[in-house]
């Protein structure tokens, strides 16, 4: 059981991810964009962050970049969950410090399997 921060501007996606994770016994906090996520991350050290890329305000790439400047989040795994599959964006995600990339549409199985790999 891990505590996970989920960041997505789409309520539907947030609910789906959140439901998948809580069903698997994890504790989930949802936020709707990067700025909120940073706020949440300041208050608590999550075991894992799962973030969308294309969001208003602070997008997912900027979020990872910002998280990596926070001492608590230097090594916390950050998974990008997004429809973006273009290489340059993945590359930017990696450079910013993202740990992995899951392309939507996501299936609960893939999400949980990736999670296990990253958390173990």
């Amino acid at each position, binding site marked *: 059981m891990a505590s996970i921060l989920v960041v997505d*501007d*789409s*309520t*539907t*996606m947030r*609910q*789906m991810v959140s*439901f*998948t994770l809580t*069903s*698997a016994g994890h504790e989930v906090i949802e*936020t*709707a*964009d990067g*700025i*909120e996520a940073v706020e949440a991350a300041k208050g608590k050290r999550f075991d894992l962050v799962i973030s969308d*890329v*294309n*969001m*208003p*305000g*602070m*997008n*997912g*790439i900027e979020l990872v970049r910002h998280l990596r400047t926070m001492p608590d989040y230097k090594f916390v795994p950050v998974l990008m969950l*997004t*429809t*973006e*599959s*273009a*290489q*340059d*964006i*993945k*590359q930017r995600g*990696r450079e910013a410090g993202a740990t*992995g*990339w899951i392309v*939507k*549409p*996501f*299936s*609960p*199985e893939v999400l*949980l399997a990736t999670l296990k790999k990253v958390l173990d």
Partner: protein
Amino acid sequence: MSIDLTRFYESFFAESLDGLDTAEAGLLALEKVEPTPERLNAIFRGIHSLKGSAGSLGFNAITDFTHHVESVLDHLRKGTLTPDRDTLDVLLDCIDYSRTLVLAAREGKVADVEQANQLIASLKTLGIPVAGASVNIQSPPAVITSNRSGYHVRFEPSSGFFENGNDPLRLLRVLDGLGEMTAKVDLSRLPNSEEFDPERCYLAWDFQLLSDTEQSEVEEVFSWVVDDCKLLIETITPAAKEIEALAPQTIEALAPPPLVERSREDRRTSGRRTEDGDNTSEIRADRLNVSRSKVDNLINLVGELVITKTMLKQSVALLDPTSAATLSASLVQFERHMRDLQEGVMAIRMLPVSHAFGRFARMVRDVSQRLGKQVHLEISGEQSELDKSVIEQLVDPLTHLVRNSLDHGIESPEIRRALGKPETATLKLHAQHKAGNIEIMVSDDGRGIDLERVATKARAAGLLREDETLTPERTRELIFSAGFSTAEAVNELSGRGVGLDVVRKNISALSGSIKVESTPGHGTAFVIRLPLTLAIIDGMTVSVGADIYIVPMTFIVECLQTDRVKLKTVAGRGVLVEVRGKYLPLLTLANLTGATNAASFENGLLLILEAEGNRVALLVDALIDQDQVVIKSLENNYRKVPYLAGATILGQGKVVFILDVGALVFAVRE
């Protein structure tokens, strides 16, 4: 694990429709304003999110279609496509169709596929590659990436490749799955046995992949190892395929310049996105999606609490003031908190009126185009907030008024030019708060209401006697009569037998009023006044005989003592009272509701009520109190009762009725 996805449907449908509205509004705005990256991104995001969520929920028709739209929007975003009129037309149609798809999904139906194909074809005519098309817009010398015969892939993992948990074999298997693959291993980096470190990677490969797959799919295979290896993917043209045996360098020479080095440069053929400039000012607060029934329930509970508070207050009033001083003081504080709570809860349901105004940009654009008129829509005050249910019920009347204006009010550009008016007419939608109400104005600078013509029509329709003369105010009121329309020709837009009488009826049902102002030749303005919410109103408690009623404050003009007015009986019109030179019908509840009548005219009071521009005098015995009352629907709890707008519970727990002033005034006027 398997998850019942249906639980996410409701939120998906609501969110998708919102997103499409945003995208639509954004596209419409592009006709007028500079397409900034923020604006374009917001449009893109509406479709992008829809595609993502739909895919995850298995709505494949939506995903497939929006994918095409998304890639066109992506070009718009990158500036490789300009948002000219044709482009916007097609994209707006696509938004419409996406909406149809979402609605169809909600109904569990399948949308018309033919239309999707037509739209995708239209998207392709926009002069840019849509998904699956074949031109790489990034490289000017048009690297053809589809319909290839195959690829040559040079894959050289870094020596630390294994350290990151990567496995070349896995990649090879995936690559093999894409087509007919031959692999040649390159052992040149292999050191001698003394230097050999089993944890290092020394191998490299050259693959020949014969396949029709998109290059992007080949790239995808290596996506996560890209900076842990040297990778070269080059296309093999049919000519080059015949000389497979040639070294890569030769192939490069034969087919210039298909060599694409794996780098941070983007080479994706389509559907490529960046988040450049993804910094819209639209910063969202932490949002909750709560079902409407929960909020309604909360509002009901607050209503109950308001009633309990009133009961408590009345009980405290009966106590000895000195001994109950502390209790009284606490009660004052309780009341204040109660009011704050009530406002807070009501605010949950308040939405900016832009939710109703938003749709008109599109409608005005489409309708004026069809009518060959030039119309500029000006929206102001759209941030004024209004109860969600009021907004929903406001859409139809507003639609009618806007259509009316486009159809009858605004002249054709030729006529306007001849009249010395600017060819482009202005249609204004304006909202503002006024003393606990909201005022919404729909106005245009068109031809105005022709009073002559109205009178003639009214006579012809039997609404007026031949000899009856009218004040301009009264004439304008006529246009709200049932069966009245000055439309010369019945047309698609306004002449469907629905007149302004229906608009007025709808507005009245919201406890509101509508008036019209007009200057012939200069324009018309319809002004709608509405209470901010339907759940709690300010009401005057009055007694009539043995009964108590509530009269909504919005309808009360004034209150007069009966000795200040004169009674007059007019044949055919019943009893009238003269108030400052004007004769108003006297309304007694007995003859309409069968209720007990006021004790006597002499000892009573007259409430002057106004609804739909008509005034009547209601005879009551006394005014008891003025307070906020919580409206309980009679239809939901009992059945619709004529002349009653609802019921409420007073402090003592007594149920009293709220008068439907609109209906009463209407009945008396009839």
